[in-house]
């Protein structure tokens, strides 16, 4: 059984988190993400969880990482300025292989920018924003239903790969209200436990160590310093650093096919839209209106690690068109994987591309 509701995207995200077993939320109010915190504040205590309003976003993500090390599913939600503040500790989560979820309801930037307007301006920040080399996972919902479903998925991926994992939504899906089907229960997949005799930061076949949360008697030392498989600092040996950081990157990048999640339409098309998040809705509208089989659509639900093989699903593609709510961010990633021209259709200011704008771009480039 399941129930059907008319719900706001941010509320659906919180409901998805609760369904996934999230029992810790540390956050700081910021438009346009605040409804997630408000929903968690109302719902978590009754679900046996902890909601805590921290003093800033640095503290929010820190508390989430601390809670995650007790074995709790833990999350925070924020928007651009708060996301920027979290960057150092996001790198810490990557370095310490802490499974945690960060929801970014993107708004117009830079700086304070447009608090109540949508953007997709943090797509490179979520991949490269903290210092040093690492890899993470970023997911991009385009509907209220996906705000629920993909939040659950974000928790599973965070646990599976032991990385900070991002739900990169935006003000449009965050504040939009749509019909959403909420199942009575969802299946969740947690981290593999640390095997007897295994070291706490030993990668194993897939590069992902087993997890021994605090209190499980394994005396795990967790540090953001370069460390060996025991977790002990080893900050000057070039090989120790090389071995650790290459594993942190490879455990995600080598699993691109396992992590990938995308939709394709009209595989024979010569002109192919590549989208993620709400611009996909405009493309879907254009395709419904034109009934033109020569237009294709690749819609990414996972943007990082980037599934470059998805572009090969369109063997006849002559041109790729990329509408994004930024000045052209993910378009760079597409450009470096294909020989065909990749045309950026940037839009900033907070409004979605209109179907007419995309038709115009289509006519200009097909």
């Amino acid at each position, binding site marked *: 059984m399941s129930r059907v509701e008319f719900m706001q995207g941010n509320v659906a995200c919180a409901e998805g988190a609760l369904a996934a077993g999230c029992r810790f939320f540390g956050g700081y109010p910021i438009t346009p993400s605040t409804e997630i915190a408000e929903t968690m504040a109302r719902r978590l205590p009754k679900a046996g969880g902890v909601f805590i309003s*921290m*003093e800033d976003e640095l*503290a929010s993500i*820190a508390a989430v990482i*601390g809670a995650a090390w*007790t074995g709790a599913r833990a999350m925070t939600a924020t928007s651009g300025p708060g996301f920027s503040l979290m960057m150092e500790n996001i790198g810490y989560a990557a370095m310490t292989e802490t499974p945690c979820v960060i929801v970014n309801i993107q708004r117009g930037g830079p700086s304070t920018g447009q608090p109540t307007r949508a953007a997709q301006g943090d797509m490179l920040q979520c991949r490269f924003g903290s210092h040093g080399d690492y890899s993470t996972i970023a997911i991009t919902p385009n509907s209220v239903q996906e705000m629920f479903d993909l939040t659950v998925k974000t928790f599973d991926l965070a646990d599976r790969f032991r990385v900070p994992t991002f739900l990169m939504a935006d003000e449009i899906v965050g504040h939009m209200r749509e019909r959403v089907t909420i199942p009575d229960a969802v299946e969740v997949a947690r981290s593999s436990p640390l095997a007897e005799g295994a070291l706490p930061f030993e990668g194993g076949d897939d590069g992902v160590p087993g997890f021994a949360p*605090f*209190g499980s*008697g394994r005396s795990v*030392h967790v540090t953001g310093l370069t460390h060996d498989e025991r977790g002990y600092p080893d900050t000057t040996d070039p090989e120790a650093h090389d071995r650790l950081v290459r594993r942190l990157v490879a455990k995600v990048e080598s699993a691109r096919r396992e992590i990938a999640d995308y939709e394709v339409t009209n595989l024979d098309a010569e002109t192919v839209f590549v989208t993620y998040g709400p611009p996909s809705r405009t493309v879907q509208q254009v395709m419904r209106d034109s009934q033109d089989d020569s237009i294709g659509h690749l819609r990414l639900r996972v943007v990082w690690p980037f599934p470059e093989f998805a572009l090969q699903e369109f063997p006849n593609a002559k041109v790729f068109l990329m509408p994004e709510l930024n000045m052209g961010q993910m378009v760079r990633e597409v450009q470096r994987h294909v020989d065909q021209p990749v045309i950026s259709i940037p839009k900033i200011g907070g409004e979605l591309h209109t179907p007419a704008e995309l038709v115009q771009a289509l006519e200009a480039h097909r």
Partner: protein
Amino acid sequence: MIAPGWFREDRLPHIYCTGCGNGTVINCTLGAVEEMGWKRNETIFVSGIGCSSRAPGYILTDSLHTTHGRALAFATGVKMAQPDLNVVVFTGDGDLAAIGGNHFIHACRRNVDMTVICMNNHIYGMTGGQGSPTTPPGAISTTTPYGASEPAFDLAELAVAAGANYVARWTSYHVKELTKAVAAGMQTPGLAFIEVRTQCPTNYGRHNKLRRVSDMIEHLRSHAMLVDKYNRLTAEGKPVPDGTFTVGELVRRNRPAMGVKR
């Protein structure tokens, strides 16, 4: 030996300089842990960045060595998510009072049930001895070559004002008193803050005519005044020598606390 079985002996030798006071503070803390009868698999040590914050790496429990200034925020997450764990935070004056100042006052305000031990050596030791928010006015450091010109923070008074349930201050000379204070803090529900004035002969003493370890410890001892005596002298309008700081228990109270063991 204090608390045998609680040290990661395979991590020795440690990184602390000859004459550093941090080992004394670790010993006193583990002495208090032993007195409390805490178990290793129920006790978590958390720290930020700096010399003080390397301490958890030498203790054989689960431990979280975090980012600069944020230890209390991480510890809040640990303790609120799992109140059955005993949480101890090691921090330093730069970590706690400079970059982590906001987390310090909010952790005291929330009164989260944990024990916070600040090794206050009046300097950024790890980076080679720069002036910190507790560097005394006039003291020489690599970034205060003409003498520190800013007033210093009184960390213990700050914790009292912000609401911690237990606050004490001692020095690395006062090992028995310090051990007792840490244990008293651990017994008090809510946030216990223990400031330990400790010596950094390498990066502080060297620049301030206190090159010898014994000179630094004697300097701490001779400038420490029991809080009762200090209060009596000041109430009577009698003078207190320059550079005096109070030691002892500054507060023990029962404000509502968070994250207390179920």
